[in-house]
């Protein structure tokens, strides 16, 4: 039988994408999960897999097309029978338990008429009343925005959006329009999509996670000297060795010792998930806004490996060439403003992670050395750790940063 492959929801905040590559041609035999095309949004590129196996019989899109979720991409002659075209790309949920759809709907029906009897005395046209039934909305509680208070389809959509926003903890406060031009000359610039998405995520994280930030500093005189040695070696191989790989290695060492910092709360908020892998997100500032590519298996990589990974990811982040997956799966994030300045800041945790490290500008300081009884010039890096207080206690966080400072000051952790 012929099945249509439909563009699924692309993930939070992405409402459209451009076709950058069609990976199959008519007649190709594809298996489930095999990539059939690559899309590119403002932020990332995404591979779209086939949801059924079979032979491609028709391709309905071309490179450069702007697509929205729900668009029919191609038709496929399937070998499987009665496969419902259910595509879930990012929401890789297990197959849902089989519920009889008819029973489901019949029980749902009650919500509309259940308490109120009927839609009588409601000012809404028959079409709106039907949509309300389909969406399970009790019209009695909707305030109509149409002429004379008529409930319109837009009112129902608005209600659904509000519900969704409320359930995600994002309650949009009604905002008043301010005429800034009243006070002087202004210019108006539209937010980039990446800025909007990041903004929404940051707000959600900020509102849903009880944040605490711990501040500390590390003596990095020795490893910085070591880094300069490596830098010369690296230059020969064409690898730029920055300080970041050292921070990643150090963080991973401490994360291994303190697994709570590498954990996540599950969706029920009832369990902690400890991860036995160490994928570190690195905040990268790009002309379009902030992105956080993830470096995988940091614990298994050398300083040079990590340097190479970082060069590749940050270049592609700036060119908008990152794939969606390359920004997923992080277990801990480092946000470094060390190259820019500042003495300390409190970063926002990047959920579902539970902790993030913020790095500020290192500086030479006079430090008293007990052994020699003298002040010595040491290169000191101020850093912070913001954490989810539901998962991590203050004492544990203080211990974490102390330990991290200790690791960073001990060259033996970095020399093989």
């Amino acid at each position, binding site marked *: 039988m012929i099945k249509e492959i439909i563009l699924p929801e692309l993930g939070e905040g992405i409402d459209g994408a451009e076709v950058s590559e069609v990976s199959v041609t008519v007649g190709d035999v594809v298996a489930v999960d095999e990539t059939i095309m690559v899309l590119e949004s403002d932020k990332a590129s995404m591979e779209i897999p086939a949801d059924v196996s079979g032979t491609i019989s028709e391709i309905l899109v071309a490179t450069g097309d702007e697509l929205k979720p729900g668009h029919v991409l191609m038709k496929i002659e399937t070998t499987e029978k009665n496969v419902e075209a259910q595509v879930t790309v990012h929401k890789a949920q297990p197959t849902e338990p089989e519920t009889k759809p*008819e029973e489901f*709907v*019949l029980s749902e*029906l009650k919500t509309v008429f259940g308490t109120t009897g009927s839609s009588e005395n409601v000012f809404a046209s*028959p079409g709106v009343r*039907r949509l309300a*039934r389909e969406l399970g909305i009790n019209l009695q509680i909707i305030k109509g925005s149409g002429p004379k208070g008529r409930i319109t389809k837009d009112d129902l959509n608005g209600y659904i959006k509000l519900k969704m926003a409320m359930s995600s903890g994002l309650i949009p406060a009604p905002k008043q329009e301010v005429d800034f031009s009243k006070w002087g000359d202004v210019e108006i610039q539209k937010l980039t999509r990446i800025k909007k998405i990041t903004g929404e995520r940051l707000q959600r994280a900020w509102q849903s996670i009880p944040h605490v930030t711990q501040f500390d500093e590390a003596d990095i005189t020795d490893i910085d000297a070591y880094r300069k040695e490596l830098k010369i070696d690296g230059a020969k191989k064409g690898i730029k060795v920055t300080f970041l790989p050292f921070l990643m290695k150090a963080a991973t060492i401490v994360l291994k010792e303190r697994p709570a910092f590498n954990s996540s709360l599950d969706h029920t908020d009832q369990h902690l998930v400890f991860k036995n892998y160490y994928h570190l997100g690195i905040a990268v500032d790009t002309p379009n806004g902030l992105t956080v590519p993830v470096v995988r298996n940091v614990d298994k990589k050398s300083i040079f490996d990590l340097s190479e990974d970082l060069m590749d990811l940050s270049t592609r982040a700036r060119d908008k060439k990152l794939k969606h997956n390359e920004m997923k799966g992080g277990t801990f994030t480092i946000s470094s403003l060390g190259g820019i300045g500042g003495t300390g800041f409190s970063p926002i945790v990047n959920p579902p992670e539970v902790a993030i490290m913020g790095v500020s500008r290192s500086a030479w300081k006079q430090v008293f050395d007990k052994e020699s009884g003298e002040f010595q010039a040491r290169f000191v890096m101020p850093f912070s750790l913001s954490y989810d207080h539901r998962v991590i206690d203050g004492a544990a966080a203080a211990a974490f940063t102390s330990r991290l400072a200790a690791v960073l000051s001990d060259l033996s952790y970095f020399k093989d």
Partner: protein
Amino acid sequence: MAESKHAEIVVIGAGPGGYAAAFRAADLGKQVILIDKDPTLGGVCLNRGCIPSKALLHISKVMEEASHLSKMGITYGEPQIDLDAIRAHKDKIVFQLNEGIAQMAKARKVEWVKGAATFTSNTELSVKTDVGDIAVSFNKCIVAAGSVSATIPGVPADHPSVLTSRTALDLVDIPERLLVIGGGIIGLELGQVYAALGSKVSVVEFLPNLLPGTDSDLVKPLQRKLKKQFESIQLSSKVTTVTPNKKGTLYVTIENEKGTKKEVFNKVLVSVGRKPNTNLLNIEATGVEVNEHGFINVDVYQRTSEKNIFAIGDIVGNPMLAHKATHEGRVAAEVASGHPAAFDVRAIPSVVYTDPEVAWAGLTETEAKDNGIAYEKGEFPWAASGKAIAMDANQGKTKILFDPENKKVLGVGIVGPGAGDMISEGMLAIEMGADAEDISLTVHPHPTLGETFGMAAEVFEGTITDLYVPKK
């Protein structure tokens, strides 16, 4: 049993509600069997109700209009009536529509089983067909078995001279004197047909009004016309006995306040309402609840008390109207197919297809007064409509009842030619929650009868310029 079948959805009854249910379910991807005991599809409405009666009413209306032309200087001779030709004309119309439904059923792959269905359990039916009994099992069943003319005690139901709406439409002959028992919609429509074809028609109505329950101002223009067309209209009267005699005529005893009288008629038409066909279905074999009037109880989703059995149309209650059944049928089909439909309408329009037509929708004045519901009224007499005068229809009127608070349309009543077509605008106004100014600000074409709807709202608003209405 010789044969057995299974359907995802089986529909009992192929009337306007039943075939709508079957077709909707099929369009939603269900495998459907449609059962009807008639040899053709379309039920009472198409085969012996709405459609054939409208074919005959069209004839009587044109005859009436033609004779009316004498007032305008055109005179025809006496009409020559060929009853066989009229019958053939009527049958042709019905046949054409029968064929249309059969083709639509075929195109949708709805299986049509001809036979009388009775329940054997809540998941199985037995269908008595020409070729023996067939067992039909189902996942879901939609009962659309309709209704039949009610009978009255004292009147022999099976005598050839005692007609029902069904046999009256067969038009076997034109009786010299016809008695219509019951001055409701069906009685008046058929009375007018027979009167136009030459019968002397008398109407006996038990209640003090024709079209009981209908606002008297809407009935009046019709009653005035019927007085001229009919031999007599006897209200608050009751037929106690109808006795066939040897001469082939009928002795009829009629009782009223003044006493009892005997009259002789050639035929009697019993049109005292309809009763649901619930008793033909062996419904007791299921858990379906039936109320004391024989109607099947359903909820807004057309579900009976038995989860997989739905019921729609005449068999679930009044008003027994095809358009109600059609909508209910589609709701049942959608809910049975897993969609969140419901019979959620503000009003169901009623139309009397006499000449003049009478139509109403939503709240009536009678109802409002009986129940103490507050309303205000905008009324436009057709005597002020150029189109109505040109058509010699100046007896008509259009009235709209409004909510005194928010001025929304609560009900509409129209009498006059085309009232049945015009009521649709009133229905749309009610469903959309239109108020007086929505209607008066809507441009209506001139000159039409339809513009009287806009003008009735203008009268209410005080913005009318086609009448002078002193300020309130």
